[in-house]
């Protein structure tokens, strides 16, 4: 098994005349939950789109599970969940999942399992557009789980969820990693860093630090992760 799920070398992305990612190096270990943390607009989504293989890049190598990002092999084993729920509002929850299950050739019982995993088993026949924003993004997540992916790229999956649900989802992410899957989870809420095995701190298109949450606190001597991030962002000294 590869010990690096993601390897990025010299990645440069320009959007609207601005270098969103000027020159990015990065590697993400297999079988762990890695948090991608940083303020809105720092390039998290652009980076995740590069890993999913849907972002035009100007230069650099993006290797995912040992293959170029977006290769046809990877499309079968990498799941990408966008920030806004990308499921069909005019289908019921089950119809949405049936479609994505068909695209991935998923097992027949996969739909019920992934609905249970995101706690939506009682909403299957409701129109997705009638659900709340948080419920819709869970439908989107359930659709990603169907594919039985080795790597999950999750862009702010816990935004707008209540604390109980957020805890449940982070537990689910830990379980998935326990099964040997790799998760890259972005967030702009520093508190969530504590739920990751490893964190990547990102600011203005650059990775400031890559470390474990505990190490981050020790190294900066800060009381919480929010302050630790501030200290690193302002000093950039780690």
């Amino acid at each position, binding site marked *: 098994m590869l010990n690096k799920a993601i390897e990025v070398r010299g990645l440069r992305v320009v*959007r609207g005349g601005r270098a969103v990612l000027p020159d990015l190096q990065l590697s993400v270990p297999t079988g762990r939950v890695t948090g991608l943390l940083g303020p809105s607009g720092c390039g998290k989504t652009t980076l995740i789109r590069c890993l*999913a*293989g*849907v*972002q*035009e*890049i100007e230069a650099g190598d993006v290797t995912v599970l040992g293959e170029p990002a*977006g290769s*046809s092999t990877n*499309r*079968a084993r*990498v*799941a*990408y969940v*966008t920030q*806004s*729920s*990308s*499921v*069909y*509002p*005019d*289908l019921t929850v089950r*119809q949405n999942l049936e*479609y*994505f299950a*068909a*695209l*991935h*050739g998923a097992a027949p019982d996969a739909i019920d399992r992934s609905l249970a995993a995101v706690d939506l088993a009682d909403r299957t026949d409701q*129109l997705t557009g009638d659900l709340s924003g948080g419920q819709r993004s869970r439908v989107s997540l359930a659709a990603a789980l169907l*594919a039985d992916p080795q790597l999950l790229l999750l862009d702010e999956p816990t935004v707008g969820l209540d604390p109980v649900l957020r805890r449940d989802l982070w537990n689910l992410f830990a379980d998935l990693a326990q099964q040997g899957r790799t998760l890259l989870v972005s967030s702009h809420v520093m508190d969530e860093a504590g739920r990751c095995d490893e964190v990547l701190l990102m600011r203005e298109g650059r990775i400031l630090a890559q470390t474990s949450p505990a190490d981050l606190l020790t190294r900066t001597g800060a009381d919480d992760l929010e302050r630790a991030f501030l200290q690193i962002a302002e000093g950039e000294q780690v």
Partner: protein
Amino acid sequence: MSRTLATARRVLRQLSHDRRSVAIIVVLPSILLVLFRYVYDDRPMIFDRVGPQMLGVFPFIVMFLVTSVTMVRERTSGTLERLMTTPLRRGELIGGYAIAFAIAALVQSLVSSAVAVWGLGLDMGAVVVLFAVVDALLGTALGLFFSAFARTEFQAVQFMPAVVIPQLLLCGLLAPRDQMTDVLSWLSNLMPLTWATDAFTESLTTSGLNGAMWRDLGILTACVVVAVAGASLTLRRRTP
């Protein structure tokens, strides 16, 4: 192939949740035909000539609109980007759309042909149903292609007059093509709807497929293929 059929099923299911659109697709052409018939109540010659041609124009317009708006919605809602990260191939996506809307068009043209033949007494061959479906496919193919140039659903709707009305004016529906100036008649040769209209005109004189209709069918099929190929080229996996 299974992914193509899954996509077709998904598109039809989306449509089935939108009862109003289903009603418009199925019933509207028939209502317009009836209206047309009674506007020219005292001159049945006009309805006898133009009625069959309209049977081909409706599925073209309706499917162009439905397809381009659905496709723009797919692009702007992020579902297209998501599909691009799954094993679904671009041709399978486009094929799924084409199958779904061809089925919708078949239902539409069966209903409007039935109304035209049994309700309004139009005398035409059963082959019109074939051409109505081909026209709908043409509308779907052009809709898929032009949706690439629309950023919003609002823009997609604006493409309808831009793409459809010039063809309506020149296809021979409003004025016979042999009475047009050289430039206009030459232009009309380039427009797919011209050949669709021609097939419906031919259907008044024959019950099967005659030579001219085979030619029309060939040209229309070629247009569909070119537009579908163009549409899959406009679908990019990687976007800026």
